[in-house]
């Protein structure tokens, strides 16, 4: 049995390696490090996606599912098909090198697995690309929640100067409106000619088929006691208790992806920025007038004001440096982590919380030192990996091994004196000591 399992692991590793070798071949490579669009679509066909007619996915109650779909954009196969085509279409970018799938790459957990994304002309943004998997379950989109729905979110990267760089939505539509197939697809989906609103709607509809909620954790919850390792089971208890994860990352029938849909300052940007001077600057910028959605979009991506997070949207002090609680589903394949991709491994993430985040005046009070032992950290990480859908099983094994190897030598956020409260945040600063 053991030998057979080993063999099968080896086989899968072989498959992965072969796939990666294949991906490395020049012909398969798209610009900006993405897998070629045609290859991505082939991979997509091997994943069994959600129903295009809007039937609730596995383990999601009809009520919870219905709440994620706007009443003016019901799911139909035609809309999914249109969204599918748009998702992989590089023509939507100014220089024809970037599609949605560039930063939401099928072969990379529907993100780009890099700290921050690369857009047209190799320009780097300021934020980590979140996965589009299960994104429909989140109440707001983007790290600062500035788009309320997927429909709104999908339209913004296309016109973002650093991402896809189109001057406006009409220009994007103009690039595809001459394509007879698009005309046909738009007509079938929305009974009208191509237009930008429907681009957003169709992309959102396609993304609603990307529901990946079939993880070892779910199978264990369903009663398969062998689906999760003993360590992961202990990690789940920590998740619910001592480690306080569940308070912001609830996973249950109503909220299957593990986000409270709120915004918390956990101190990630405090490592890079002085919040108060930044906040002062933000107010000055805003006083100049014209802080429309586009201006905020621009500010967030082009300046270090981006580190103020949700504050840029609400101007509430409780939101300074606060970012959306990201879902925990599929974290095994969606690293690096946090809004700036500053954490390479899940060990780093747990280390960060274990030390009570990074102290700053706006730190969420719920972020406290956790006093987790090394064993407990490993258990918690094991649980987090068990939240990745079985359709990514081989990939997550490779990534887990790589992260584990890295964590053996590099733990930049581990700080036991803080975790075990031997050192109190603010103490050094109040006493005028340098940190």
């Amino acid at each position: 049995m053991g030998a057979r399992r080993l063999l099968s692991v080896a086989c899968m590793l072989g498959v992965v390696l072969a796939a990666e070798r294949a991906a490395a071949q020049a012909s398969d490579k798209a610009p900006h490090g993405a897998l070629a669009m045609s290859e991505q679509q082939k991979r997509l066909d091997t994943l069994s996606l959600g129903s295009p007619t809007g039937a609730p996915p596995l383990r999601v109650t009809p009520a919870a599912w219905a709440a994620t779909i706007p009443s003016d954009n019901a799911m139909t196969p035609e809309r999914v098909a249109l969204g599918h085509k748009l998702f992989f279409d590089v023509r939507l970018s100014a220089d024809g090198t970037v599609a949605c799938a560039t930063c939401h790459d099928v072969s990379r957990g529907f993100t780009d697995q890099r700290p921050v994304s690369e857009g047209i002309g190799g320009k780097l943004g300021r934020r980590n690309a979140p996965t589009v998997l299960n994104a429909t379950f989140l109440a707001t989109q983007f790290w600062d929640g500035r788009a309320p729905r997927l429909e709104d979110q999908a339209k913004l990267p296309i016109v973002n100067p650093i991402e896809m760089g189109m001057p406006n939505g009409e220009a994007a539509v103009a690039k595809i409106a001459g394509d007879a197939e698009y005309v046909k697809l738009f007509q079938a989906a929305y009974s009208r000619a191509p237009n930008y609103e429907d681009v957003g709607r169709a992309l959102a509809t396609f993304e609603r088929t990307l529901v990946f909620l079939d993880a070892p954790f779910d199978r264990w919850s369903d009663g398969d006691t062998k689906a999760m390792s003993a360590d992961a089971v202990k990690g789940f208890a920590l998740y619910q208790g001592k480690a306080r994860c569940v308070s912001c990352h609830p996973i249950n029938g109503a909220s299957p992806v593990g986000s409270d849909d709120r915004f918390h300052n956990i101190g990630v940007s405090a490592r890079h920025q002085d919040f108060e001077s930044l906040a002062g600057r933000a107010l000055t910028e805003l006083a100049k007038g014209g802080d429309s959605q586009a201006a905020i979009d621009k500010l967030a991506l082009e300046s270090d004001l981006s580190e103020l997070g949700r504050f840029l949207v609400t101007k509430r002090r409780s939101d300074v440096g606060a970012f959306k609680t990201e879902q925990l589903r599929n974290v095994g394949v969606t690293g690096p982590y946090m809004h700036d991709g500053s954490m390479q491994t899940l060990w780093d993430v747990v280390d960060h919380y274990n030390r009570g985040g990074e102290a700053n005046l706006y730190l969420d009070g719920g972020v406290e030192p956790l006093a987790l032992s090394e064993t407990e950290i490993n258990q918690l990480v094991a649980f987090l990996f068990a939240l990745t859908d079985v359709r990514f099983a081989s990939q997550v094994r490779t990534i887990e091994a790589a992260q584990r190897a890295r964590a053996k030598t590099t733990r930049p956020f581990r700080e036991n004196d803080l975790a075990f409260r031997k050192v109190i945040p603010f103490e050094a600063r109040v006493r005028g000591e340098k940190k």
Partner: protein
Amino acid sequence: MRARVIRASALLALLALAGVWILRATRSADAASALGKDTAEVTLCDGQTKVEFAADAPKTPESGQKIADALMKKWREKNPNVDWEAEELTHHTIAPAADNKDLVGSPQGATYGEISERDVLLWKTESERFVVAGSKVFHSGAELGSTIGVSCDMCHPDAANTHPETYPKYQVQLGRVVLLRDMINWCIEHPVRATPLAADDPRMRALEAYIYAQRKGAALNYGRR
């Protein structure tokens, strides 16, 4: 009296269930050398009263009972007249339990339905004594096992803002639907920084009793945020 019984039964539970705990008791080197064999020391939850016994004593409920009895005997000798309930009531008030006086009599002459003055007195006093025991735990960081000197009353004087009438409900801190006791345990684990209690721990039962009693008259409204 009730408080005493609760303490003793808590101790018994520990002794009966946890051989480990006995082994963890301080080994007394001096006593060991004097007697020529290992002895272990068990301390009562007052932190002062102690008894020694052979370290190789059998780990059975009977043996545990013996140790518990010895501890309580010693404690009673030291504290001959103490009345914990009366003492607790000088510090903290509790809402009175229903007196049921309207039920006294036997209008239909039912065998089991005949309710006497004595019955209603018993019901009321016993109910209140349980609540008093809860008040004692509620107001004591030591009873709760707080590692940072925090007790429930520090944020909830007279159990204010504990809203037991709103349970069961979706508790955001816990990401699921909980009962009052689950939230008590969350508080014990986090702000109080102690070890959560078992659902049937006498202290948990007493805490629930006190909290419910203090909200006498509030309408049940489960699910209310």
